[in-house]
């Protein structure tokens, strides 16, 4: 048995799967200030009458860190940043105690200016007085050479309970995002750690020995224990859960996912059987980060979107003023239109039709016509947004001639809709988009299914420079001397081996790894080759341990 629990802002969804079928599913309200309780309550009700010994694994997805950021309840870690020449790092000031010190490293990882240890000690003395518990340390180009971050960290060890280092957050170049990511990781650390401790205790209490995982924004998981140092990676895992759920319910090479909720519709794109990533990293609370996340576009259109008449036409949204009239609200909504068109929900039909009649009077048409126009308009809005997202994805810059000329464009494929109003919207979407729209069963708990079936993901960046004579596996902070004969093939082999090192039972096999970057540049100085500069990035693609496609109607 596999258990997936997604603790969202409003609802907690949970599923219990066995042999890729849903044995049990529940949807309850989240208890806002006690997420641990939300998890255990869902768990207990799923396990009623079942033996904990049969559990293979439990995967959680929570909004704990996300909410702390969005609601501005962060611990506010101290930051020490070292930059050197370039854009002034003071522009990236974040949190209440942001300090800049000297020292500089260049793009090759060479030290251009030494750290000012005296200055650092002064900063630490000052921070000591503030009794900070968490610290983030970031230096420019630390993903090429982490020695400055490590030196600062060693000096700060005694003063802090937790220190987050920039280069361990991600191997990608982007100093401002590295600063924000490190800050968020340090500032959510203690909150996340107490959650992990409480969950671990609750599971011990129930004598559950199955491994525990937590979902990340990239649609993969990490072991709960491992997540202690990477709390930032759990940010925005909610949308990722839904996207992975759609992937579990549909197995198609390319499709467009629509998660139609009460307030918003989230669009996702699947290419070559996997969801697309955001180009750089997620942005949360106004901070662009290096946290790898799945691509979604949120459109302010859902079942509760207000219907109004503007300029002689019915418009849908973008405001949501409350529930549908059919459910006791005050304004006509898309849901009212859909119930009217469907005509089968006898309990809610009168109120819904009433809403349509009010709207129709303003527009000078019949209630049925107003409902038709509303549904059609909503479908048009979604269609336009899907098109614009596709255009955006397909116009992303590329840097080689091969990619420029041969890159396969992302196409919409079939449309998979989940969420409350999705079934009623399907025919209108089909008409607007001119493609088949399907509603897989269990799509109302797609997020919990996605969490349950997600595999461990990870990513490694290897940077090798034979002229300087070293290589660096950034995310592992692993540096090694290399010979001048070291080749791109060697770099790829090493990357694969280092990936396996951090493997766990849910880590995909080697053949699930893919190289997202493999470049080798001959370095020429004064007309002679002096070495090679190699950049390799390996990742395990977001994937599923199984799928529910057997139950799927049309695939």
């Amino acid at each position: 048995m596999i258990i997936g629990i997604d603790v969202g802002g409003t609802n907690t969804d949970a599923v219990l799967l066995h042999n890729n079928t849903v044995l049990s599913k529940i949807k309850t309200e989240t208890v806002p200030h006690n997420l641990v309780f939300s998890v255990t309550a869902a768990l207990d009700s799923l396990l009623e009458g079942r033996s904990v010994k049969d559990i293979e694994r439990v995967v959680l997805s929570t909004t704990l860190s996300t909410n702390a950021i969005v609601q501005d309840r962060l611990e506010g870690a101290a930051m020490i940043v070292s930059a050197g020449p370039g854009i002034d790092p003071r522009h990236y000031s974040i949190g209440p105690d942001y300090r800049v010190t000297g020292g500089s490293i260049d793009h090759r990882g060479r030290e251009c200016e030494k750290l000012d240890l005296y200055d650092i000690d002064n900063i630490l003395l000052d921070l000591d007085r503030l009794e900070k518990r968490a610290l983030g340390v970031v230096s420019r180009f630390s993903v090429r050479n982490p020695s400055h971050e490590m030196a600062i960290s060693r000096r700060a060890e005694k003063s802090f309970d937790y220190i987050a280092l920039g280069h361990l957050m991600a191997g990608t170049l982007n100093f401002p995002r590295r600063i924000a990511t490190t800050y968020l990781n340090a500032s959510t650390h203690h909150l996340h750690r107490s959650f992990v401790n409480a969950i671990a205790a609750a599971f011990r209490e129930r004598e559950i020995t199955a491994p525990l995982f937590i979902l990340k924004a990239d649609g993969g998981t990490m072991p709960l224990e491992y997540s202690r140092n990477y709390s930032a990676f759990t940010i925005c895992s909610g949308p990722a859960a839904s996207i992975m759920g759609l992937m579990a319910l549909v197995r198609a090479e390319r499709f467009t996912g629509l998660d139609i909720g009460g307030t918003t519709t989230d669009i996702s794109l699947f290419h070559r059987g996997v969801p697309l990533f955001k180009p750089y990293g997620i942005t949360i609370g106004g901070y662009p980060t290096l946290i790898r996340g799945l691509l979604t576009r949120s459109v302010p259109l859902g079942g509760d979107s207000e219907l109004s008449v503007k300029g002689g036409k019915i418009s849908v949204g973008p405001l949501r003023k409350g529930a549908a009239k059919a459910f006791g609200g005050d304004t006509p909504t898309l849901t009212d239109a859909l119930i009217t068109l469907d005509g089968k929900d006898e309990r809610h039909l009168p109120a819904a039709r009433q809403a349509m009649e009010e709207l129709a009077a303003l527009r000078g048409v019949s209630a049925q016509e107003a409902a038709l126009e509303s549904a059609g308009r909503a479908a048009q809005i979604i269609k336009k947004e899907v098109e614009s997202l596709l255009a955006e994805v397909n116009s992303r810059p590329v840097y080689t001639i091969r990619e420029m000329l041969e890159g396969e464009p992302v196409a919409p494929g079939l449309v998979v809709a989940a969420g409350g109003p999705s079934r009623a919207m399907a025919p209108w979407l089909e008409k607007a988009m001119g493609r088949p729209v399907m509603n897989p069963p269990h799509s109302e708990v797609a997020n919990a299914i996605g969490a349950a079936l997600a595999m461990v993901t990870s990513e490694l960046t290897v940077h090798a420079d034979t002229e300087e004579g070293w290589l660096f596996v950034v995310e592992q902070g692993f540096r090694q001397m290399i010979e001048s004969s070291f080749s791109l093939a060697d770099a790829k082999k090493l990357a694969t081996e280092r990936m396996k090192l951090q493997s766990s039972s849910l880590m995909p096999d080697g053949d699930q790894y893919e190289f997202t970057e493999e470049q080798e540049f001959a370095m020429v100085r004064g007309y002679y080759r002096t070495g090679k500069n190699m950049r390799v990035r390996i990742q395990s693609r977001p994937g599923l341990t199984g799928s529910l496609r057997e139950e799927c109607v049309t695939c």
Partner: protein
Amino acid sequence: MLKAMRKMGLIFFPAFDWAISPTHPEREERLLYTQDQIWEEGLLDIEGIHEFRPAVATEADIERAHFCVPDVAHQTTESHMISAGGAIKAADVVLSREVDCAFALVRPPGHHAMKVVHGNRGFCNINIEAVMIEHIRDRYGINRIAIVDTDCHHGDGTQDIYWYDRDTLFISLHQDGRTLYPGSGFTDEMGSIGACGYTVNVPLPPHTGDEGYLHVIDNLVMPVLEDFKPELVINSAGQDNHYSDPITNMMLSAQGYATLNARLRPDIAVLEGGYSIEGALPYVNLAIILAMAGMDFSSVREPDYSLKVRAQHPQVTEYVKAVSEMLLLQWKKRDDLARKLRKGKSHEERQRSIFYDTDGIAERRHERVRLCTKCSGSLRIESSSDQGINICAVHIPRNACKDCRSEGLSDFARASKRDFDWIYLQDRSSGAFERK
């Protein structure tokens, strides 16, 4: 949070899979460290800085600016089409007002490519600025354009293409041709009689630094631009006058580049040369992008700046002052000079020898242009290369008057395949391009 004061477009195409040859300065590695710097600085996250994917130029785009021998396909690779397409994209995003200014950070470069193309010279096959400018003229109807070429080498290709065009002001600041490739760009190269003065060459002595460059910008370039009143200013932004460049001898720094750019305020900048790929390009490009976006660039400095940069020698300063002064005077007297030269002539002719250093081709060229007061005059070029190819090319300008156009058409009709391997007609007034 950082914000660009001027909305800026960046077209970045490092062509990581293209090189002239493995150890050539124009190789895959060239923009690698620039990319590292741009990414590490998070420039693309700054509000108001937008990155665009280049377009791919078409043969028709190239044929507006060049006569490729025997045809476009023989002279270009995909890389040239994308590089030219990058410049075109930069123009499009500026002229459609998506952004206020744009920088095409693309390779390979183009400013040594002339009107007739037999091969590669000075690392260039296709003049990406000229291809862009002719695209702008056709698409947006903009006529008066100024090109300020700050590459360390004389922009002899761009000069050649616009030699007869008084709507295109070409100003080149470069290391004196007596000391550097391509050995041209002297003050007396001022354009044809019909466009006399609209080519301004500023040869600078070796070891000219920030001070000298900025002096020329303030005391020559800006007054001339003010006078010319261009609708669009384009900067051919070569970065090989940096103090660390391996193939030149100038002393410009990243701060100097950025200040120059901030004063010039080009609408579009296009990368040209620059081969100090580690010591200069990352810092210079960062500084230029910040300057174009109207942002603070004062903290951008090369790591070895304090070790390497010395004040400009007073002798250099004096020389630069004198050259600027002389050229400004020359600019002001351009019409008198043109009148003197024109007297009693119906046509102007010139004979040229052109060497293609990269491909080792020697070209001999004869040009004959109709001197016309109404338009730029139709141009007939005979060109032969030591590869044994003879061509005749006729160019009819955009603004051609009736007489010039009919002379051009009859030149094309009269030229015989018995005398030439190929005969071309580039009729910019109708947009037609023909080869027989």
